[in-house]
């Protein structure tokens, strides 16, 4: 709050930063520890929980692990307690709780919960994780696009619209051309179209970026739904029957037990995703392009004074972000299901937006946030299929509740790029 030379808007938003967050991890951790302990106390389970690690096609099979459910839960509670105590000690000494401890805690707590939930049954661990990855794919692309755009100072609430339009464009184009690759390109173009509108209004006409984003989402929903009922449903065979990307097993790698089936038996879009995450992370921090993009997002005027064209940079970046989100949209119609459907993204763009913020505008962290969400969703799916003792509505709530806890308990205030959402006006 001190130096006068900082751009004012950077600081004006940052009041919450003063709120001390040191005690949040131990508090949240104790809450969760108590919850896990309550599971066994209130409703102890009979039988063994079996964790299955292997899939067909693995080089060698890791045997299933079968242990008494209650035992695992108690062990988990104990480990959780240890982590909590450690975190509390750190906070007491005015130190931050290391991320490893939080991660370890999460693993213990989740294992405890899973063991409780699958008592007497078998949990396919690999399926759980592979499904988590699959569910996260559009979210990861959405979040990546969000990160890229916002790093250049343009808030993108329209991720959902870009995903939806990408899915729409991919479905039609792939149906007409018969090629999923053409569909992929179309999805990128579709994402860029929405991005172009975003840029036009947000960059050129200085319209409040939140307005533009929200409205673009509505616009895309209206447009695609209109087209869907007026054009697509009548000619579903010709226009809404896209071929899809087949699963592509990477030789050798796909045979690694546990890891292989999770990471290397996926569609090409997932491999594109690995590349995208890596590329964006590298380029943002290591390349000239990234330096300029971040400069424009942090302090556009400073960038301008060293001869960087702020407007052009923002347009280019926003378009690129749109293309990235568009790929995410393509997963809906070229991977997940074989046709476009009305509002089929189901608000995934908003979840991706949450991942952007949750991930503190960092490509890797945002990806992890998206994966966390995918994991929570898939825990719900897997448990509801296996049969869980919890009513389905509460299971369906799970990913959202987890996100709230994570954001409130572990992340807290996150600092956006300083000029995020602030249009640049030249004199």
């Amino acid at each position, binding site marked *: 709050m001190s130096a006068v030379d900082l751009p004012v808007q950077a600081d004006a938003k940052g009041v919450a930063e003063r709120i001390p967050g040191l005690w949040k991890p131990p508090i949240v951790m104790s809450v969760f520890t108590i919850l896990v302990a309550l599971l066994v106390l209130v409703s102890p389970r009979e039988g063994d929980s079996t964790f299955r690690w292997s899939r067909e096609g693995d080089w060698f099979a890791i045997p299933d692990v079968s242990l008494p459910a209650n035992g695992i839960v108690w062990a988990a509670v104990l480990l959780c307690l240890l982590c909590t105590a450690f975190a509390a000690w750190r906070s007491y000494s005015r130190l931050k709780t290391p991320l490893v401890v939080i991660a370890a805690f999460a693993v213990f707590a989740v294992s405890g919960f899973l063991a409780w939930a699958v008592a007497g049954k078998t949990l396919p661990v690999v399926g759980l994780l592979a499904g988590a990855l699959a569910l996260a794919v559009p979210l990861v692309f959405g979040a990546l696009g969000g990160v890229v755009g916002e790093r250049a100072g343009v808030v993108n609430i329209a991720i959902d619209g870009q995903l939806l339009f990408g899915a729409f464009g991919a479905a039609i184009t792939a149906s007409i051309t018969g090629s999923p690759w053409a569909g992929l390109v179309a999805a990128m173009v579709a994402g860029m179209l929405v991005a172009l509108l975003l840029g036009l209004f947000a960059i050129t006409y200085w319209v409040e970026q939140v307005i533009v984003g929200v409205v673009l989402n509505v616009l895309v929903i209206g447009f695609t739904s209109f087209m869907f009922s007026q054009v697509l449903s009548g000619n579903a065979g010709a226009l809404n029957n896209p071929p899809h990307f087949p699963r592509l097993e990477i030789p050798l790698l796909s045979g690694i037990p546990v890891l292989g089936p999770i990471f290397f038996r996926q569609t090409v879009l997932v491999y594109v995703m690995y590349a995208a995450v890596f590329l964006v992370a590298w380029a943002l921090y290591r390349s000239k392009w990234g330096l300029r993009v971040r*400069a424009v997002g942090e302090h556009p005027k400073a960038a301008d004074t060293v001869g960087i064209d702020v407007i052009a940079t923002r347009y280019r970046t926003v378009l690129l972000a749109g293309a990235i989100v568009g790929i995410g949209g393509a997963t809906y119609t070229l991977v997940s299901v074989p046709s476009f459907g009305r509002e089929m993204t189901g608000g995934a763009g908003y979840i991706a937006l949450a991942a952007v913020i949750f991930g503190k505008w960092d490509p890797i962290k945002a990806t992890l946030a998206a994966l966390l969400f995918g994991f929570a969703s898939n825990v719900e799916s897997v448990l509801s299929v296996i049969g869980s003792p919890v009513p389905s509505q509460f299971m369906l709530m799970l990913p959202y509740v987890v996100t709230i806890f994570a954001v409130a308990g572990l992340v807290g205030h996150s600092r956006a790029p300083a000029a995020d959402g602030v249009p640049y006006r030249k004199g």
Partner: protein
Amino acid sequence: MRLALRDITKRFGSLVANDHISLTVEPGEIHCLLGENGAGKSTLMNVLYGLYQADEGEILIDDEPQRFKGPGDAMAAGIGMVHQHFMLIPVFTVAENVMLGHEATGFAGKLDLDAARKLVRDISERFGFEVDPDALVEDLPVGVQQRVEIIKALSRDAEVLVFDEPTAVLTPQETDELMAIMRQLKESGTGIVFITHKLREVREVADRITVIRRGTVVGEASPEASNAELAALMVGRPVELKVHKEPAEPGERALVVSDLVVADEDGHVHVDGISFHIDAGEILAVAGVQGNGQTELTEAIVGLAPHVEGSINLDGREIVGRSVRKALEAGIGFIPEDRQVDGLVSNFTIAENLMLNRSYDKPFVSRGSLNLKKLDTFAKEKLAEYDVRAPGVSTLAGQLSGGNQQKVVVARELSRDLRLLVASQPTRGVDVGSIEFIHKQIVAARDSGVPVLVVSSELDEISALADRIMVLYRGRIVGIVPADTSRDNLGLMMAGETPEGIES
């Protein structure tokens, strides 16, 4: 390189910010620009730097007319600028900031940071700077940030350098160092435009002085001219440069601070166990290089600091652990160091800003509802009393010039029954006319028996206001000394040393 601006006119709507201004800068010359707040100095420089396009007039380099479409063109032509508000990216390292815009790259656009580091080191060496190329700019003291700005300009081989109010945030030592650098640059043939409100500096380095008032050149002054002459030329009337004040008549012990420790949320300690007191009717001025705990000290008193230990006792009551609101209600007036961040809501009207710290209760609020009539009357009174230059009380605060914004803050804080006034950098970036006024108000508050804590990085201001001076260094008190301590001794103390003959 010889630079000439000829008949530059720049309008913002109906406002003529620059009205046919002509100016030349010879190689190896320091040309000072003087003028009140809003006179049009920065605008002129922004035109020169390609940030604004002039409506009329032309820029000549060695008699060649130039067309600058943007700063890129200006830089290419050899013009560099250190802006009034630094143009550094806080979350970038020094090297990144310096290379931005002309990056050296390797394969696939990979940044060549080593080249940038070397560049920074080379230039630093040439001028005897100590700058770590890998330090994050936001972690650097302002003085160092300024050097980064200079390195940035020099890394592009600027032949004309513009310094827009570079000293507003510097300590005396840093200012002296900057002057030395400017002379060194001048020796090597660089032409320099130097904008400042501090007349002492002008007379120290200027080869030529041009005074601007309301967008037009009102004359050239000789570097030999007296402060009073320069001030009068700037403002258009005689200005009292040194506030006239009677010796203090200290009353009872009002503020007692003991063993105060202030840490931020990361656990860094900024104020490290200090104790002092202020009596009623006395001004204690806190001197120190910025970033030595002054900000945290004032924030702790007002209740804004997150982690405070020790005791702050005002009129016999403990205020550590109280909320800001409680602190203000206990009678503390607070002029924050950055008015735009902490002092004003720029999208509020002047009137609305005047009730910012009294939004819970009387006089402007009764039973949860605003008393707009009362506020309006009050605001009109204060506008007149504090000579705020604005069309009316419903003008947005953000549209006022810095000096007038500061007057609004001062008016708000001084219009309550105060038991303590905490004023942080009360006249930063304010022109001489307004400085005179604000100083008078602070002294008047003291004379009415209010204890005052003034924090300033401006030694002139410290000497003008202080009854006693407290020097802070790295969160500790170096010494509390009488008001007539010499500049040199104060300067040494600000560097953490205790000069001979000074009790700490």
